[in-house]
Every structure is written in structure tokens, then in C-alpha cells.
């Protein structure tokens, strides 16, 4: 007996893009994840939701290789990912916007945009500075549309607004051609119009045939774009629900029920 309830199991026969199996992770005495199974299908937008401290960020950090699971397996397109690290997961096509943005704030924008994969001359490791700046300027204009603010690639990050920082983290993830894009609370700090931009990015990701994991506390945002919802509670998956099987109101009702009882409302729990 698994503790997660799957309503309307995948009717479409899709090959899985990501499969995480029985993931356990604790930090010292704190158990962040206890036996989580998590799947992302091809061209699927998965809304990963749950309370503060449920383990959402930890789960995706394990997927991207930032953190290491204590036990459990990760599969990418059916093949097991062993000794996961950030470089590896990027190379296979996973891009991430981390909740804490992962920006080195005293550095300028272009250094941040290409951090960890600098544009360099061959194997010498010397930077292509002009090219980096140009591309960074293009990214700022085309991908985020921050033109009106006159953001230049040369500026330091620390002076930017929260939304601008978030925009840079998002642009960085979208610039590199990924098959799976992970957005951890991407709409935090964003204004209404910028939030809509991010939601449109998600729809664009779907159109392009890519997949996305969307983590958020805003049910409105996630309901607008996701194909399925995976609900985490205190380190466990308490439910996987397809969007076509539930209305937004019922989803919210379920989340409130989970917060109280630690499980789905009965009607939804029958797989």
C-alpha cells in the first residue's frame, strides 16, 4: 500500500521524463522527506504544492543534484541518475529557478546569468566578456522585457528590486535550452503583470513540448497552468490529482483538509 492516492491514473501512455522513487532525506534530526515517489511525464506541467516546510524545495534540490538523498532512486527518461550533481543535471536538460534565487548579489548581472557556465575561449577558460555582456543585455530585453527599467548587464544585482532579481533568475533558467524547467516559487515578489508573464512562460513551455515543475503557494497561479498537482505534507506525498478531475475550489478545500488531517478528503482518496 502506497500512501499516495492517484486519482485517474495516467490514461495517456507517456514515457516518464522524471521518476523519483522512495526518496528519503533528513537534515540532522529533521526529516525533510520520508519515502517520496514523484513523477513528471513528458510535456507535463506538474504543480508541486504543500505547506511551508513540506519538503518541496528539498525534493527538487535532490533532483537537480544540489542536495543528495539519503536513500532512493532517480530516473531520467528511464535511465538511473547516479551521483547526481548540478553540472550533470544541467547537461541532460534540467534548468532551475531556486526559491532563494541563487544570485551572487555583489556581482553584476552578466556574471550571474552565466555563473557556472561562463562563455569562454575554448579550453583556456578566459571569458568572452563582450559576448557575455551582449547576450546578457539581449536576455534582459527579450526574455523578461525589463527594457523600460533600463537594466544593463553591467549593473550589480544588489541594487535591483526583488522582482527584478526574480526576473534574472528566471531569464537564466529559460535562456539555456532545457527539457525540464523547475520553478520554485517563481511568482514571489512579482507584480501582477510580471506574474502573468511567468504564467505565460509556463504555457509556452507546454507548447514547446517541454516539461515543468511549478512550486508555489498560490493555488490560483498553479491551477492556471498545471496538468497535475502533487501535494506534499510533512515529507510525504499525500495526493496526486489531475487537473481535469478537480475544480480549483475543491483543490483548496482539499489543501485545507490536509493541513488539518494530513490526508485527502475521502472522495478524492479512492484511487
Amino acid at each position, binding site marked *: 500500500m502506497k500512501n499516495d492516492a492517484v486519482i485517474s491514473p495516467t490514461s495517456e501512455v507517456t514515457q516518464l521524463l522524471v521518476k523519483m522513487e522512495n526518496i528519503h532525506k533528513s537534515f540532522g534530526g529533521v526529516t525533510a522527506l520520508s519515502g517520496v515517489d514523484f513523477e513528471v511525464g513528458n510535456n507535463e506541467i506538474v504543480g508541486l504544492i504543500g505547506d511551508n516546510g513540506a519538503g518541496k524545495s528539498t525534493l527538487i534540490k535532490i533532483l*537537480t543534484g*544540489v542536495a543528495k538523498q539519503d536513500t532512493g532512486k532517480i530516473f531520467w527518461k528511464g535511465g538511473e541518475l547516479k551521483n547526481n*550533481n*548540478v*553540472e550533470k543535471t*544541467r547537461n541532460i536538460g534540467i534548468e*532551475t529557478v*531556486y526559491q*532563494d*534565487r*541563487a*544570485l*551572487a*548579489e*555583489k*556581482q553584476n548581472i552578466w*556574471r*550571474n546569468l552565466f*555563473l*557556472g*557556465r*561562463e562563455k*569562454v575561449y575554448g579550453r583556456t*577558460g*578566459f*571569458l568572452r*566578456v563582450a559576448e557575455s555582456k551582449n547576450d546578457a543585455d539581449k536576455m534582459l530585453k527579450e526574455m523578461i522585457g525589463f527594457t523600460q527599467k533600463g537594466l*544593463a548587464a*553591467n*549593473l550589480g544585482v*544588489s*541594487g535591483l528590486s526583488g522582482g527584478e532579481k526574480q526576473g534574472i533568475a528566471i531569464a537564466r533558467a529559460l535562456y539555456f535550452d532545457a527539457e525540464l524547467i523547475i520553478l520554485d516559487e517563481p511568482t514571489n515578489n512579482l507584480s501582477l503583470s510580471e506574474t502573468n508573464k511567468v504564467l505565460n512562460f509556463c504555457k509556452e513551455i507546454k507548447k514547446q513540448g517541454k516539461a515543468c515543475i511549478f512550486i508555489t503557494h498560490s493555488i490560483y497561479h498553479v491551477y492556471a497552468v498545471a496538468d497535475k498537482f502533487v501535494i506534499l505534507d510533512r515529507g510525504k506525498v499525500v495526493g496526486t490529482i489531475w487537473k481535469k478531475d478537480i475544480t480549483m475550489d475543491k483543490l483548496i478545500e482539499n489543501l485545507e483538509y490536509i493541513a488539518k488531517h494530513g490526508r485527502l478528503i475521502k472522495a478524492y482518496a479512492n484511487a
Partner: protein
Amino acid sequence: MLDKIKLRLTESKLQISIFFVLIFLFLAFAIGNPRTFLSYNIYYAFMSIIPFAAIISIALTPIVILGEMDLSFPSVIGFCAWVFAATFTQYGNIYLALICSLATGLFAGFVNSIFIIRIGIPSLIVTIGMQYLWRGLVMIACGGIGLSLVDTQGTFLYKAFVGRIGNVVPAQALWAVVIAIVFALILNRHRFGVHLLCVGDDAVSSRMMGVNVEKVRTIAFMQMGFFAAFAGILASMEVLYFWPSTGEGYLMKSLASVFIGGTSVFGGTGTIFGTFVGSIIMGSLEAGIVSSGISGFWTKFIYGVVIVLSLTIYALMSKRTGFGKKLISFIKKIGTQKSR
């Protein structure tokens, strides 16, 4: 275009101000004692002595940029200088001595990085211990007795390291300049420089973006050891003698050079140019003070004033301190009130 120039200026305001401090000091020296400071001899002397401290300060800069600290280098200088002198005395092969000494320096840096990264002792603390450890090893090894290096004098390496180019420029000055340029290039134009700055700024974020944080730290400490050895060899060859105390006296001056050069103790910012100018200031102050006719008793005091003053200027200039902003606007207010 104007915006670009403005941005450049704000980016390099620390470097510009430290440069002006240097110009101001030398003007003051020249006014205080024109005969000395308008002749070449004093600059020749500076170029003979300052490079050792300059090289060490340059190598120390990446470590401070990482937000780390190394207090062990004076003793690493001493131990590596002993390895050099002892190997040369024993085998008469200066290249063997060079390689052994530099390798020892790399090893000392590696040991530091093991304690800091693997065992998790803060660098400030573990390098205090290492400072005693290496100096202790020097004392045990040489029994407190120095070694003559007079026999190195005829060698090619002697000419290349501390010879006098065309009888006017000490070779070590050229080494210091070349090392400074290479370090500046790496810091500003190389992937490793980006990683240094970003890890010093925010190690967690850098790791998330795929930077090998441990590797960056290890390399920083190993190069420090390497250049400590190099400076130790140069300094010993310059005086043709290995003293058991070699390296002592560099600690405070090198740290001060880095900090008055504008590198922040918080990590994530810093320039090689600033450090280079800082080490010239630290290296010339004493001679300047004494030859200006001020009593030698004043030297330490003036060192203190220069260091504290430049650090105050930086603190006020950096946007991070709200106090500085307030102070500047307060000063401006007073200024405008007076002028009315």
C-alpha cells in the same frame, strides 16, 4: 556613453581613491625631503624591498575575496625558505631546491584547505595554529641557525629572481608586476575569477549554479602557499642568507595592504590593483616618514592613521552601510549651512 563612463568610475572608485592616497603620500614625501624623493636611489631601494610583500599580498587577495583568511603564510614563507636553503646546501642544485620549496608551499596550502573544507575549522582559526606549527618546524629543522646562500649568487636563477636588470631595475620588481598583471587578468577576465568572486559573495548560491566551491577554495589556499614559498625564496636570495625568522613581519603589512587596497573582509569584492598600490604604500611609508625628517617614533602611529583613514573612507563609500550614507549627507548639510 557618459553613462558607461560613470558606471566605470563608480565601479572603480575604490581603486581611484587608493591611487590618490599613494600620489598624495609621495607628494608629501617629495615636499618633506625633495633631495631623497626626487632621486632614483630611493625608488631603487623600494623596488628591491617591496616586491616580496607585494607578491604575498597579491596571493592573499583571492583568499580574502573568498571571505577566508590565512594567517599561516609568514611561517610557510619561513619553512619554504628553509627547504630551499637546506636543499641547496645539501645537494648544491638550485633547481632541485626551487622545486622542493615550491612543492612544500603548495603542500602547506593544501593542508590548510583540508582542515578548512574537510574538517570544517574556520580558516582564521586553523591558520593561527598552522602559523605556530610551521614556524616550530623551522626552528626544529634548523636549530635556530641560519644558512648562507652566497653560493647561489653565480647562478642563472639568482639573476632571474633578484638580479639587477641593466643595473637599474631589480628583477623582483618585474616579478611582482608580472604576477600582479596575471592575477588581475584571472580575477577579471577568467572563469576562475568569476568563481572566486561569486563563492566569496554567496557560496550556497554558487554551489547551486554548479560552481565547485571546494575546488575554488582549495586552489586559493594552494596558490597562497606557492607564492609564499616563492616570496620566501626571493627574499632569502636577495640577502643571500636564510634566517630562521624569515617571513616574520609580513603578516600585518600584507593584511593591511589587502585591506587598504579596498578588498572587503566580507568577501565577494576586491581588486589586485588596490592590493598592489596598498603594498607600495605599506612598503614606502616607513622610509618616507624617516627621510622626511619626522622622528622614527612616529612611524607606527602614521601607519595606523593611514590604515584607519583609508578603511573609513571605504566604509563610507560602500552603499551597504546606511550609517555612511547618513554621515555623508550630514557632512554635506553642514557644508551647505556654512557656505550660506
